[in-house]
């Protein structure tokens, strides 16, 4: 019951990402997802272990605070405020999101991990992955694509947490470290792209000539 509220917040936040154009909204929503992820481990069965506390703290501090902070720094330096003219419009994005939601529930209900804390875990992970991938594909700005990458990473974490009792925490930490490095590097690269070309539209990068 309580975990349902968490899932619904996840779905609604994913739809917010699909339908919004302001980069600050994206970052706030992604920060919210980070905090939701930090609550998630507490729903796993069994006694409270060190793993759970560690995962909760690390997720909350990195995805809830550190990544959003790094990204808003990148936005401020690159001076972009909103995604203009995505490849796929916001209304169509929402509609495709609905189809994605249905598909991921259809697949996810056949893929329930035996140790999952909720029947929706696999579906939610797939949907979040889908939204992340879709953001990367359909948006023009490099920064939105980096944000999509982060959303995808959230999807992987959801799946990871469902298997927390059997998976070593080390794997989770490894993924987080990768994500951290990626966000860090992307922040720097975005700044340089912006310096060099006065814009961040990745689709125009294929016209580069030497």
């Amino acid at each position, binding site marked *: *019951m309580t975990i*349902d*509220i968490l*899932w*619904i917040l996840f*779905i*609604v936040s994913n*739809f917010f990402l699909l*339908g919004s154009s302001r980069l600050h909204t994206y970052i706030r929503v992604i920060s919210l997802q980070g905090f939701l992820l930090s609550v998630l481990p507490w729903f796993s069965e069994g006694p409270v272990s060190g793993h759970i506390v560690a995962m909760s703290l690390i997720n909350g501090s990195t995805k809830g605070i550190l990544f959003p902070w790094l990204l808003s720094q990148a936005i401020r330096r690159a001076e972009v405020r909103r995604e203009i003219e995505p490849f796929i419009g*916001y*209304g169509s994005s*929402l*509609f495709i*999101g*609905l189809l994605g*939601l*249905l598909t991921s*529930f259809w697949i996810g209900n056949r893929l329930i991990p035996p140790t999952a804390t909720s*029947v*929706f875990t696999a579906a939610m992970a797939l949907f979040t992955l889908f939204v992340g991938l879709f953001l990367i594909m359909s948006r023009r700005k490099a920064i939105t694509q980096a944000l999509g990458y982060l959303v995808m990473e959230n999807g992987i974490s959801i799946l990871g947490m469902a298997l927390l009792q059997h998976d070593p925490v080390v794997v989770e930490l490894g993924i987080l470290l990768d994500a951290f490095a990626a966000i860090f590097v992307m922040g720097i690269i975005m700044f340089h792209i912006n310096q060099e070309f006065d814009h961040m539209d990745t689709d125009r990068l294929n016209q580069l000539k030497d």
Partner: protein
Amino acid sequence: MNPSSLLCLLAAWTLSPLLLGIINRTKAVFAGRRGSPLLQPYHDLLKLFRKDLVISRTTTWVFVAGPLAGCAILGMSTFLIPFGGSPSILRFSGDMILFAYLLGLARFMTVLAALDTGSSFEGMGASREVQFSALAEPTLFLALAGLTLSTGELSLSGLFSANSTLHRGGMAVPLALIAVALFILFLAENARIPVDDPNTHLELTMIHEVMVLDHSGPLLGLIQYGAALKLWVLGAILWNTLWPFSTGHNGADAGIALVGMMGLAVGVGVVESVMARLRLLRVPALLTGAGALALISLIFIARL
């Protein structure tokens, strides 16, 4: 026939313009004005019904039939709506589908009458109206499907009756989502603010108002009364979803439902006062979002 059902039907017919008055008064209070009297919509309707009719020579009988049929169809839809714990007068399995299509038929008649004028302007309004309602209708069906699935009842009266299982434990979250979706639908279908501004007469942004520009006198009165009835029926469905409880006493239930409807009207007034109208291009996103909420709750209900 249940006498309390008949009373509720009469309440729908007589009190629906009052909701418009309450909305306008709420907006006036927010703006720091005194506002028009609560009964102003009734005076407006009476004034319109006393007026003469001006009909353009380019129009055909469809122009007159549109408002007549529209108002009659919306009047029919009030027969299907349970209110304050008493069942509706007309009820059968699947009457919710009839209800949804009565709303669709009323809209179709309005659109036909608008197109009959031959004005490109009204054609634009008609096009917008059907575009947005094409997005709003799936939301209504998804919400009703969610409610049906959670109770196993196939009629609106059964769904919202006192012994329906709508409010057993564990359903609160999906039901709240359905209520939010229905509220957005309520605002969109009644041409209220985030979607359409009922006060505006700026051609670029109008949706509903632009379709009725050529109607005058009693025909305009019928259109406005029909709009009030639509506000009432959709509001009643929303209120039934929000407040499924029963005190066991018919009078008390009806009183609570009446207060609830007024509360909804105040809510609409507050939304109109604190929000700006959405850009026209963003409206489909809002409606798809409402559909998404209804779909999410449907998925969660299907699991429970």
